[in-house]
């Protein structure tokens, strides 16, 4: 099938950038979206043009590197699907496809579709881990953790840190990302010890990095390729309330 792509091209962080139009011809419906871009890049290179620069790594939906807003939706908006797992069969012959980078003040554009997501790392470094020594790998069942708690923590830990929640949020808030880590650690024995400092430090860093405030649009949950629930933001809010007066 043949498509028309409108792709954001921007030479560097300071460049103004604009949408440019490219044809994508002879695309197989079995290709992933990134394979389709590879094909388009082959053609661009052949004609002496700069290939479209985009982030990717695992191409199997686990690393969180791929990051594109496709037709106005983060990762193309298919439920629980990253760009690398999005297939061309969900497009029709003749479609116009708009491809843009994550847009947020906290994510400066490096080039074309690649943004700098260090701000998410900085939030992690502000407390997204237990700092106490937990020793070697514990014996199985040495820390009895109930199945519902373990499931809850695992659901939160599914976050791959891609930043789609920020890209989808009208306020560019990273609250879903932050809440997934806060909630995961808050229910586990190793994480509980520093829970109060963690929620304060991580949310303060979120703010300092230039992300917006959460106002419960719930776009993050709908944009998340891992289906992380906003119930974790509710949990973060509860954890924050425990710190009031501390």
């Amino acid at each position: 099938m043949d498509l028309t792509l409108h792709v954001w091209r921007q030479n560097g962080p300071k460049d103004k950038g604009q949408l440019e139009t490219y044809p994508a011809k002879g695309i197989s419906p079995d290709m992933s979206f990134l394979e389709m871009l590879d094909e388009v890049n082959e053609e661009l290179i052949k004609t002496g043009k700069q290939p479209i620069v985009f982030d990717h790594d695992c191409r199997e939906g686990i690393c969180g590197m791929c990051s594109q807003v496709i037709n106005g939706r983060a990762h193309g908006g298919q439920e629980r699907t990253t760009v690398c797992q999005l297939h061309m069969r969900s497009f029709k012959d003749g479609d116009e496809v708009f491809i843009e980078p994550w847009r947020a003040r906290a994510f400066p554009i490096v080039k074309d579709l690649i943004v700098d997501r260090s701000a998410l790392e900085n939030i992690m470094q502000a407390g997204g881990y237990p700092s106490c020594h937990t020793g070697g790998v514990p014996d199985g069942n040495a820390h009895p953790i109930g199945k519902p708690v373990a499931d809850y923590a695992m659901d939160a830990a599914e976050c791959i840190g891609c930043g789609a929640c920020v890209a989808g949020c009208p306020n560019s808030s990273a609250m879903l990302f932050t809440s997934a880590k806060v909630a995961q650690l808050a229910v586990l024995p190793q994480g509980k010890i520093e829970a109060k400092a963690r929620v304060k430090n991580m949310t303060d860093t979120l703010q300092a990095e230039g992300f917006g405030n959460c106002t419960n649009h719930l776009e993050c949950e709908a944009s998340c390729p891992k289906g992380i629930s906003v119930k974790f933001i509710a949990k973060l809010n509860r954890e924050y309330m425990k710190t009031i007066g501390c």
Partner: protein
Amino acid sequence: MHLTQSTVGRKILMAVTGLLLVGFISMHLLGNLSVFAGPDGINAYAEHLHDLGPLVWVFRLIMLVIFAVHITFGIKLSMENRAATPVNYSIKKRMKTTFSSESMLYTGLILLAFLIYHLLHFTVQITNPEISAANLPFDAAMRPDVFSMVVLSFQKVFVSLVYIVGMIALFLHLTHGLSSFVQTFGWNNGPSHEKVTLGGKLVAVGFLLAYVAIPVLILARFVKL
């Protein structure tokens, strides 16, 4: 203090003050509906309120603080959120958020404008002095005639329209606000939230219908002097 600076703390302040305002509009609505009981309803109610004397001023002061906190942080948070997204997408599709969630600042500002008009109209009584309770004769029980003021006011199409527009803004504001505060307080445990959102919308419709009934029924002459 951390609460007034933190991104989560200020969100909680928005929700707490928002909820107190909802409490206020609930009481206010009950009072207003006494207009349907005629002069003996609303005039008696108004006189009881005035008999509270200094307590009225304590109450007004508390309301002022609540409004000030809600409006200050509402505007501040909205401006920060705008600054966090300096460049817009050329195409952006809404996936879950709604018109009411996206227009909170605007419906809030319309409410503020409405509130000022409302106070000038019924409390200070300077927008329509010729039909203000201060200038109308006392009713049969020698009370200020609030009932006649209300009825004569809403017989004017312009005044009724201002109130109807104000209440539509309130409806939109509450459509988001009534489920938003549940999430902010951390009471969302996942599956329940769809129902909470629906419930919030229904309550918002309830407020709209009940409040708008007053100008509409007076305009339609179902309620008259």
